[in-house]
């Protein structure tokens, strides 16, 4: 029998080693697998390369992982927000690397990584500083820049409902980068709000087919990061 369920978030991330490249789903707090990130903080592994749209908020979730000194490099589109202090401080001290990638290019690089496309051309960044040093090629008289697919050792994902096989559906705009990241990692680890009986998800409505998922852990009462931040909480 295939059963991808694991007992705890700690078990789910136990084999992540230092130096790993990790995709973390979410756009701001929406869709952020905060409990899995906190479990990763508890392991203490270092020198991680993290791919996420942002760099976390306050001193919880991704911001706490960065603040704990476990991340050597961030690949993201927007490392600022109204509650993002941890990353800017480390970056300005030169203690963390940053690869800035336009949001659509980031999504497409992950999509390409997941679908076996090593590189592709896009119009985004042509004529801007972010295209400097990159290969430019013309198609039908318009210039495009070469971008490379992205893969990861692990993906940390949050979804709304999953069955034991790892068929996933998401909640509203908490979907964001999660489905595409599921496809681009060697090991995809999912925290689900609800674990449901096999057969209860509508096959027409499943967003991530289970082939892309390796581990499922139920987190039935996930934190809301903005509530933690408003309460002044820090992790750990």
């Amino acid at each position, binding site marked *: 029998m295939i059963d991808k369920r694991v007992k705890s978030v700690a078990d789910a991330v136990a084999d992540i080693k230092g130096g790993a490249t990790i995709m973390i789903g979410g756009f701001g*707090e*929406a869709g952020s697998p905060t409990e899995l990130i906190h479990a990763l903080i508890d392991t203490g592994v270092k020198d991680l390369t993290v791919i996420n749209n942002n760099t976390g908020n306050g001193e919880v979730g991704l911001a706490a992982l960065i603040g704990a000194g476990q991340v050597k490099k961030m690949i993201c589109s927007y490392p600022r927000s109204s509650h993002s202090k941890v990353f800017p401080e480390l970056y300005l001290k030169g203690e963390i690397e940053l690869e800035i990638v336009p*949001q659509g290019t980031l999504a497409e690089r992950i999509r390409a990584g997941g679908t076996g496309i090593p590189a592709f051309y896009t119009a*985004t960044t042509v004529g*801007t500083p972010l295209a400097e040093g990159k290969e430019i090629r013309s198609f039908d008289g318009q210039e495009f820049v070469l971008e490379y697919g992205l893969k990861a050792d692990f993906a940390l994902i949050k979804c709304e409902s999953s069955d034991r096989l790892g068929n996933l559906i998401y909640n*509203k705009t908490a979907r964001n980068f999660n489905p595409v990241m599921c496809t681009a990692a060697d090991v995809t680890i999912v925290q689900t709000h609800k674990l449901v009986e096999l057969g209860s998800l509508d096959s027409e409505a499943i967003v991530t087919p289970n082939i892309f998922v390796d581990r499922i852990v139920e987190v039935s009462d996930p934190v809301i990061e903005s509530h933690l931040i408003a309460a002044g909480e820090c992790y750990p």
Partner: protein
Amino acid sequence: MTGWTREQMAELAAHDIPDGSYVNLGIGIPELVAKFVPEGREFIYHTENGLLGMGPAPDPSEEDHELINAGKKMVTVVPGGSFFDHATSFTMIRGGHIDVCVLGAMQVSEQGDLANWSTGAATAIPAVGGAMDLAAGVKTIFVITQHTTKTGDAKIVKNCTYPLTGPKIVSRIFTNLAVLDVTKDGLRVLKMAPGISFEDLQAQTEADLIQ
């Protein structure tokens, strides 16, 4: 010289968006455009974090932290709205499916170059988000901005000194003082705020204006 309010600038921009347009609104003053849809027109709003058919902010009783816009503010869904992942969302943008985008600006040049993501200063943390994808992929790009900076420096310039978001992409500029069209001959003044003369306007503008 104050000219139009933020709301009036947004209303002017909304007036120039054709009926039936798929529209992406940037963060800040552009968000106000949604309040001023002219009567008889229907726009469908896209937000790049994965929603087509975005509605206004929710009542407090209906707030949902997993239903947000690109500025990470809570929003609602209109009837017919749909959710999708980031790759699909940027297929809409980069594949040329979004008709109109309204963006903020740090500088706009007379050629329609846009700079709105970084000052390029050594202490600035670069943060581009979806701006370059919108710049490269959306058919018509409007800019809404104050005509000058808070310290009175020109934002409508001959050439941008800040790093570009995209070259030659802006088609129309809505400021507190005027509405400007980017043409092959330069910036043409379409409208001026009440009480503003062409000479006043030119004095606040580094680029040469066409009357």
